[in-house]
C-alpha cells in the first residue's frame, strides 16, 4: 500500500512533478482507506478521531486516529510524537494499544497515528458505575481489569519502558468484537525507555493529573523507576473498588514542578507519614529535606487504607493493594510479583473478557464513547454549533440494557456520518517501509503555504444528525489522550 515513493509525491504547488497531491482533487491516499466518524477526544497533544476502515477484509473495523497538534513553528517534528511513535513501533502486546499505521500529511506536516479502536476506558466505566448504575463494579471485572493491566505493564517494564502517566482514562477496554473486554494501555506520550532523558514533567508543559503520582515524585525524586507506574496501578485499583479517586489532592499550578503539599497530605491522611525507618532513601529527596517542617507539621491522623477501600484487613485484595501503595519504591511490589499474588488465584479467577463474567452474572451495559461528529480531521468545528445530545438521544446509549437494547456496545447508527477528505495527505503503511516517505519533498513546503487546506473541507462539513443514537452523556471535552 501507500508506497508514495513510486509516485514521486510532492506538494500541490509543484506542478512540475507528477503525482502532485495537493488541492488538485486527488484523494489523499491514506485517507481513502477510512471513513471518518467524528472526534472522540482531545488532549494535550492533539485530537483523537474515530474512523472505520474501508479496505476489503477489514471493512468497518473501528480505528482511532490520533492527530498530533502542530508543533510550534520552528521546532520541527515534536519530540513527544517521535518518542511515542518510536515506542509504539517497538512494542506488541495484547494489553497495549496497537499502532496500526502512521500517516504524514505532507501539506502541513501533521502526523496521524491509527490505532485499533477501544470502545471503553476505565474512566467511563468507573463513572458509569458511580453516576448511573450506582453499584460497585463486579469483583470479576475489577480483578480481570487489574490482571490485564498488570500483564501489559509487566511487558512494558520488562522492556524497560515506564509509562509515567497511568490513570483511568488511559486504560482502555475493547468493546464488542473478538477482543471484547480486553484491556489496552494507551497514551505513551510521556513514556520513556529507562535511558531517555527524564525531564521534569512541568517543564514539558505537560499537565499530568497528580492524583496518581507516586510519593517519591511528589517529594522531588529525579529518577523515575517502574515503581511509579505501580503506585498509579494501586490508585486505580482502589478507584475500581470504591468508584472514587483515592488521593484527590488539589493541584498547585505553578512552574516549574511545584511542591504538591496537598496531594502528599491526602496520601499521608490515608497511609500515615512515611518514616526513615521504613523508607531509608527518603532523606535524599529534595522536598523531604526542604519542607520537612511543612510536611511533618501536619497532623498524622491517618484513617487507615482499609477503611477507605472497605476491604477486610486480612483479605488478599487488601494485601495486594497495600503492597502497591508501599512508600519505598524499592519495596513496592513489581508488576511481575503482583501477577503472582494470591488475589489472582482465588475465585473469581481473572479472565480475558473483563466485561462479561463467565457464569451468568448480570452484565452491565457500558455506554459507548461519545463521538463529536462536527469536527473534521483538521480539528475544525463546523459552522453549526455542536448540539448537546437531547434526552431522546440518550435512550439508546444510556442504560441501554434497561431499555431492552441488546448488547453493551450498541452498533452506532451511521446516520449523518460524513466522510471528511482533507486534501494533501499521503500515507504509508508501517509494514511496507521501503516506500515510506518516498514522496517527501523537503523543499516543497512553501507551495502549500497560504492555501487554506480547510476551505475545501468547510463545504463538506455537516452538522450532526440530531437523530443519532449516542451515549447517554452529552459530548464532553474530557482530557483524553490516546
Amino acid at each position, binding site marked *: 500500500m501507500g508506497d508514495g*515513493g*513510486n509516485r*514521486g*509525491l*510532492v*506538494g500541490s504547488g*509543484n506542478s*512540475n*512533478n507528477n503525482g502532485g497531491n495537493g488541492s488538485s482533487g486527488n484523494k489523499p491516499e491514506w485517507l481513502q482507506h477510512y471513513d471518518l466518524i467524528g472526534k472522540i477526544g482531545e488532549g494535550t497533544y492533539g485530537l483523537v478521531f474515530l474512523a472505520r476502515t474501508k479496505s476489503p477484509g477489514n471493512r468497518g473495523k473501528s480505528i482511532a486516529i490520533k492527530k498530533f497538534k502542530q508543533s510550534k*513553528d*520552528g*521546532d*520541527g*517534528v515534536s*519530540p513527544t510524537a*517521535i*518518542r511515542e*511513535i*518510536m*515506542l509504539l*513501533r*517497538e512494542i506488541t502486546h495484547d494489553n497495549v494499544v496497537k499502532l496500526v499505521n*502512521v500517516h*504524514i500529511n*505532507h501539506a502541513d*506536516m501533521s502526523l496521524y497515528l491509527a490505532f485499533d479502536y477501544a470502545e471503553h476506558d476505565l474512566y467511563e466505566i468507573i463513572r458509569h458505575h458511580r453516576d448511573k448504575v450506582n453499584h460497585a463494579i463486579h469483583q470479576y471485572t475489577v480483578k480481570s481489569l487489574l490482571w490485564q493491566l498488570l500483564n501489559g505493564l509487566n511487558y512494558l517494564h520488562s*522492556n*524497560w519502558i515506564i509509562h509515567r502517566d497511568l490513570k483511568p482514562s488511559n486504560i482502555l477496554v475493547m468493546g464488542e468484537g473478538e477482543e471484547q473486554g480486553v484491556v489496552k494501555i494507551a497514551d505513551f506520550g510521556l513514556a520513556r*525507555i*529507562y*535511558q*531517555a*532523558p527524564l*525531564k521534569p514533567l512541568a*517543564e514539558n508543559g505537560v499537565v499530568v493529573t497528580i492524583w496518581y503520582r507516586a510519593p517519591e515524585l511528589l517529594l522531588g525524586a529525579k*529518577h523515575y*523507576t517502574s515503581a511509579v507506574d505501580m503506585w498509579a496501578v494501586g490508585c486505580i485499583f482502589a478507584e475500581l473498588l470504591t468508584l472514587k479517586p483515592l488521593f484527590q489532592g488539589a493541584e498547585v499550578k505553578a512552574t516549574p514542578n511545584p511542591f504538591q503539599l496537598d496531594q502528599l497530605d491526602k496520601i499521608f491522611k490515608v497511609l500515615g507519614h512515611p518514616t526513615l525507618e521504613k523508607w531509608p532513601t527518603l532523606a535524599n529527596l529534595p522536598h523531604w529535606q526542604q519542607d520537612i517542617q511543612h510536611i511533618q507539621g501536619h497532623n498524622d491522623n491517618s484513617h487507615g487504607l482499609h477503611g477507605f477501600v472497605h476491604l477486610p484487613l486480612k483479605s488478599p485484595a487488601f494485601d495486594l493493594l497495600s503492597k502497591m501503595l508501599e512508600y519505598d519504591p*524499592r519495596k513496592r511490589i513489581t508488576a511481575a510479583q503482583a501477577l503472582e499474588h494470591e488475589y489472582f488465584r482465588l475465585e473469581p479467577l481473572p479472565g480475558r473478557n473483563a466485561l462479561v463474567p463467565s457464569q451468568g452474572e448480570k452484565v452491565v451495559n457500558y455506554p459507548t464513547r461519545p463521538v463529536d461528529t462536527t469536527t473534521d480531521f483538521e480539528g475544525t468545528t463546523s459552522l453549526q454549533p455542536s448540539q448537546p445530545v437531547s434526552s431522546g438521544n440518550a435512550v439508546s446509549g444510556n442504560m441501554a440494557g434497561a431499555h431492552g437494547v441488546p448488547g453493551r456496545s450498541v452498533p452506532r447508527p451511521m446516520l449523518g456520518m460524513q466522510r471528511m477528505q482533507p486534501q494533501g495527505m499521503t500515507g*504509508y503503511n*508501517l509494514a511496507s*517501509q*521501503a*516506500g*515510506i*516517505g*518516498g*514522496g*517527501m*519533498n*523537503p*523543499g*516543497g*513546503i*512553501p*507551495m502549500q503555504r497560504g492555501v487554506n487546506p480547510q476551505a475545501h473541507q468547510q463545504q463538506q462539513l455537516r452538522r450532526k444528525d440530531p437523530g443519532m443514537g449516542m451515549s447517554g452523556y452529552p459530548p464532553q471535552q474530557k482530557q483524553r489522550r490516546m
Partner: protein
Amino acid sequence: MGDSDTSFCVSTLLCQESESCLNEQGYEENTYIDVKPYDCFVSEDEEDEYFENLFRRETCFGSKGSSALDDYSDISQTWLKSARLDAVEWIFNTRAVFGFHFRTAYLSITYFDRFISKRYIDRGKMWAIRLLSVACLSLAAKMEECDVPLLSEFPTQDFYFESNVIQKMELLVLSTLEWKMGSITPFSYLSYFINKFFGDSRPKGLVSRAVELIVAMTKETNLIDSRPSIIAAAAVLAAFDNQLPRKIMELKMSVISFWQSDDKEHMYSSYNLMQEIGKRKVKTPELSVTPNVLSLHSGSHYLNENISYNSAAGTKRRLTFNESDHSSPVKKVHRK
C-alpha cells in the same frame, strides 16, 4: 561554530570537560558525558539483565548490514566518504556549540549512516548532506536532550535552510528509519564495562580516553557495521592499554556473559582499529583530518527549492533534486 575553520581535532571535542570532571565523582555534574544510563538498579542481576536486553536490541537497528558506502562506484564512494566525514565533523562541532551529550552526536551519526544505507544522495550535493546532518542531529537531540534548540538555531554555516525544510527532512529521516529512533550507543555501556572490567581499580581518566576513541571511531567506520557494545568494550580496553595481549582481552571479555565468539572477534578488530587511531594520535597529537569539502567553499547558499524523492531501481531510493525547472536558489557549490 561561527568560524569557518572546520579542521577537526579529537582533543578539542573534550575541551569543555576538564579531566577532573570525568572522574568518578564528576559523573553527576558532568553535562556532556553521562555514562550512567540508569543508576537505580536494585541489584547487580538487574543491571546485567538490563545490558543483556540492550545488547539484544542492538540488532533491531540494522547493526551489521551493507552500507551505501559499499554500493557506490569508486568516485561516488570517495565523495560520499568525504561528505560523511564532513557531516561527522559538523555534528561534533555543533554538539559542542549546544553542549549536547556525546551520545546525542553519536546517535545522530547512526541515523545518518542508516539513512544513507537506504537512500542515495547524488554526488556533489553537499547541501543535502548538510540538511541531512541538521535533521539527524535535531532528531537525536529530541531523543536525548532536555533542551532542544530551535531548528533555526543550528549553525548550518554555508547553507541556509528554512525551518520547514528541515522539518520535512526530519520527517523523511523518521520514515526512512521506520521511526526506529532508539538506536543504542556505546555510551550506554561505558560505566557498565568499566565496572565489569576493572571494578574499583579503574584508572583515572579512563572515561575521557574511551570517549575520545569512540568519537574517533565514528570517522573511521560506518556505524551500521559495528555493534555499539563492541565499540564500547574496545574503547574501554584500548583506553586502558593499547598494547593488551589477546589473553588479557579474552579474560576481560569473559566477564560479560552475553558475548558470543563472533562478537569477540569483532571486538578484537575494533580494538586493533583503535590501536591504530591511538598510534596516529601519538605521532600527530593534533589529529586533524584533511581539509574537507565544506571548508573549500564559503558564502551562504539559500535553499528553498523543490526536491523530490523518486524511486530508483533496486532497493534504495535516490534523492533527486529538480533544480532544472526553477532558477535554482541554491548557488552552485564553489569548488577549488
